[in-house]
């Protein structure tokens, strides 16, 4: 009986094995094809300007944003505070935060390191870093902490990298101000410029029921810098040196006093 069962099970097991192998092969093949579709964004990128476009990547300007009354009040209050002195977050060595970081980061270049499970974006200005997690690396919602760049989850749709950013803190100190309810979706794809150069195009859509009456969209283009390098940017160094100079002056003054 046992023998019969075994004899009957063997063809079944063999069939199951064949099906499983085929499925695995299909999965691996499709995964390989998907990986082959995904472009490698690794490298250094700087602001791309369309031929004939003024330098600066079209920063600022544009149509007025569809701000809610709440947002208008908060932004007006903030501007009344800083306009007399011209203070900015960067003046205090604070990074731009999303979406300002992905829309230009003060005109400085950025560097992308791409792995299947995580993409690192380093913006030279203020050494601002974004981590885009993919697949199993995506942090569960309950374990995320809010911040100026929020939490970014990525996925590939063909050759387009789709990044969704949530868990942002309210920021009235950038052009695209937003509340902590903001949700930003970036869609990255590669194009070729007129000289055959690689251009990374980022289409951004931000929705925020507290700050905006309609989705806000923007496009940022980055040109690849062949064999480019980011430079160090220790923003706090200037303040530290000035602080030491002040301490030296005080110490010199104290020494003079003690001589008297």
């Amino acid at each position, binding site marked *: 009986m046992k023998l019969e069962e075994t004899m009957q099970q063997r063809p079944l097991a063999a069939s199951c094995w064949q099906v499983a192998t085929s499925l695995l092969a299909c999965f691996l093949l499709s995964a390989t094809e998907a990986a082959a579709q995904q472009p490698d964004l690794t490298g250094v990128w700087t*602001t791309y*300007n369309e031929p004939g476009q*003024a*330098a*600066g990547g079209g*920063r600022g300007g544009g149509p007025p944003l569809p701000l809610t009354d709440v947002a208008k009040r908060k932004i007006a209050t903030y501007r009344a505070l800083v306009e007399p*002195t*011209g*203070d*900015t*977050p*960067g*003046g205090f*060595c604070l990074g*731009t935060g999303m979406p300002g970081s992905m829309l*230009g980061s*003060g*005109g*400085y270049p950025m560097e992308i390191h791409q792995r299947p499970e995580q993409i690192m974006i380093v913006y*030279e*200005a*203020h050494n601002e870093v974004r981590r885009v997690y993919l697949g199993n690396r995506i942090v569960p919602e309950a374990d995320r902490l809010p911040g100026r760049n929020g939490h970014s989850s990525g996925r590939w749709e063909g050759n387009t990298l789709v990044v969704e950013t949530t868990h942002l803190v309210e920021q009235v100190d950038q052009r695209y101000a937003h509340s902590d309810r903001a949700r930003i979706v970036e869609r990255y794809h590669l194009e070729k410029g007129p000289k055959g150069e690689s251009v990374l195009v980022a289409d951004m859509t931000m929705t925020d029921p507290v700050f905006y009456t309609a989705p806000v969209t923007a496009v940022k283009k980055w040109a690849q810098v062949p064999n480019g390098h980011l*430079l*160090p*940017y*220790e*923003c706090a*160094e*200037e303040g530290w*040196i000035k602080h030491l100079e002040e301490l030296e002056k005080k110490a010199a003054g104290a020494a003079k006093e003690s001589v008297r």
Partner: protein
Amino acid sequence: MKTIVLSSVLAVLACATLAAHHSAVQFDFGKSTAITGVVKKFIAINPHMQLVLHVKDAKGERDIAFEGHSTNNMYRAGYRDNLIKVGDTITVYVAPLKDGSDGGYVTAALTASGVRFGARSRAELEQERLKAEGQK
């Protein structure tokens, strides 16, 4: 003289960068003034280079402190390590302070070895535009 020719792209980009992270209300970026002096102090840092020049002019002899574009922007506009040393005689191109006092925001420099680095100011770009129009 070895001259590093800079694109207007870089110039405007550098100005945009300045606006992005620094309060610049005290500087007049519509003007560009050339000031020559001996370097007493120079620190190539971000977000703003620090410079003290010993200057002799019609107002007398004194030390003037300047700040300027970030080292990173200057690097991409031709600056390299050791181009400026204490004791060098250099010329800086600055956006002067609006109140007319000593100092300013360094946008470019001509070093003792004849290397010019930095961005052309809006005033310089405007002068070049007018010159080009005059030549038409």
